[in-house]
């Protein structure tokens, strides 16, 4: 099985704060990987390094067989990396449909009718089709989260990065979101998902990676990881030998 994404020895610091400290891991084509870690552990920074919003100090990011460490964000998106933002960043002055159209035309490179059909399909998939003509600025939190997902999908990604997309949702909303993400994964999209809502993550992820202080501290089968002493210590503050 060849790796779609391969992170090697990635390093990034802002002054004394290290957000990525020699992290290395691979994500295979078609895999769904969950990323766990306390606040400030460097999870979102890792996404920024993968998508190109941040440049690594050293180390490499390889995607689809190519070294993309120095590529700008736009070029990475065109290769098939798309993300949702933890704090939704909708294009507030545009309609929901136009938000998706941006990804379809700029990211996926579709034109005219094809782009419009794809944008509409993505909105239907994420349950936003009845809001298509509303201004994105007038959406509720749940709708904004869905729009984040829709917009990332509109760029036709091979690798979809989800950043705390289930945070702040009710159980019912969360359940619907999990179903949507499962469907996207079943269609062959590789997913990396950062989430604090552990049950959501467990429902989708085939493998978990735990990050703390920019370092990968554990990696493996979701159940085994959740029961490991190290994860309990990081999350619950219980000493490993207690």
């Amino acid at each position, binding site marked *: 099985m060849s790796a779609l994404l391969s992170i090697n020895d990635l390093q990034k610091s802002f002054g004394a704060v290290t957000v990525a400290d020699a992290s290395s891991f691979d994500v295979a084509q078609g895999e769904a990987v969950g990323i766990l870690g306390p606040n400030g552990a460097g999870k979102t920074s890792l996404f920024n390094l993968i*998508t*190109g*919003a941040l440049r690594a100090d050293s180390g490499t990011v390889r995607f689809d067989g190519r070294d993309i460490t120095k590529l*700008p*964000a*736009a*070029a990475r*998106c*065109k290769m098939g990396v*798309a*993300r949702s*933002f933890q704090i939704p*960043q*909708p*294009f*507030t*002055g*545009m*309609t929901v*449909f*136009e938000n998706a*159209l*941006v*990804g379809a*035309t*700029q*990211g*996926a*490179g579709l*034109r005219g*009718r094809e782009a*419009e*059909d794809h944008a*509409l399909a993505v909105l239907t998939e994420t349950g936003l*089709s009845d809001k*298509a*003509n509303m201004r994105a600025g007038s959406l509720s939190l749940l709708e904004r989260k869905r729009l984040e997902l829709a*917009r990332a999908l*509109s*760029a036709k990604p091979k690798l979809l990065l989800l950043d705390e997309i289930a945070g702040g949702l009710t159980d019912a909303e969360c359940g619907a979101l999990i179903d949507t993400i499962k469907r996207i994964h079943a269609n062959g999209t590789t997913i990396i998902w950062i989430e604090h809502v552990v049950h959501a993550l467990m429902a989708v992820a085939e493998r978990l990676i735990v990050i703390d202080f920019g370092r990968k501290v554990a990696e493996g089968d979701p159940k085994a990881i959740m029961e490991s002493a190290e994860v309990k210590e990081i999350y619950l503050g219980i000493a490993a030998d207690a």
Partner: protein
Amino acid sequence: MVIAALGLLVLAAAPWWAGRADLRLLGEIYLYLSLAMLWNLMAGYAGLVSVGQQAYVGFGGYLLFALTMFGGLHPIAAILAGGILAGFLSVPIAALIFRLKGAYFAIGTWVMAEVFRLSFAQASSLGGGSGSSLPVDVVRSLADSRSGREALSYWLALGAAVIVIACVYLYLRSNRGLALTAIRDSEVAAAGLGINIWRTKLEVYVVTSAFTAIIGGLIFLQKLRISPDAAFSVNDWTAFVIFIVVIGGIGTLEGPIIGTILFFVLRETLADLGTTYLIVLGLVAIIIMLKAPKGVWGLIRSRFDLELFPLSYRVRTHDADKGA
């Protein structure tokens, strides 16, 4: 559409129904409207808050004089040539000032405009610091009679405004315009969706600069006299333009139109008050910024879901075609 076309016809016929002073005022309004449209595209959409576009106004004006006096070009050809040259010139300037962000960018553009002003003040063949007038034979080449010339420069101004509005509108309607609007709303998300932000901004900067120089040429074709201080005036070509755009509603197509109307209504009613007029302008700007930060158009749009220019793509119920 029909109303707009009829209105345009009435305006085009102005040389037959308006007096000389009114014609001049209308011409000035069209040119300010064009400047405001261009500045709005650059600052309101591309986020390039320049306070140095007077560099291109003055450049266009001076090139009209230089190319007609020494190059023997027809004034209209000289104005177009000035626009094209300004476009080329703006590329290395962009490479320099795009390194600056936010307030530093604004100051950088101003410094650049001062460099332009000082350079043209050195050109003794163009009258140096005191400037020069357009020679009589060049003026004659436009039209024989004074009224003929004034009508022509009126039509040029009207034509320029129509072309600028049409170009800005068509650009914003295109896929590139969609990308530009995305940049306006969130640069980080736009980059993440495959939009090359630097290149998009460069495109906008070059095109607006070229058009601004053309408008500059037309402004000084009306005035027939140029001097460095008038050509590169930050007050006339940038401060008033910013006032127009901000009052009307920055980042919208309708804003500059409403702003231009408001600006000229204020100017014409308060012109006799001298400096008090500027104080009133300042007060109006402050009140609008506090009470309606998105300008008059933003206020209107928040009440009624209204668009003068159908820019947005909407999904129709029966098919996914784009439409208004």
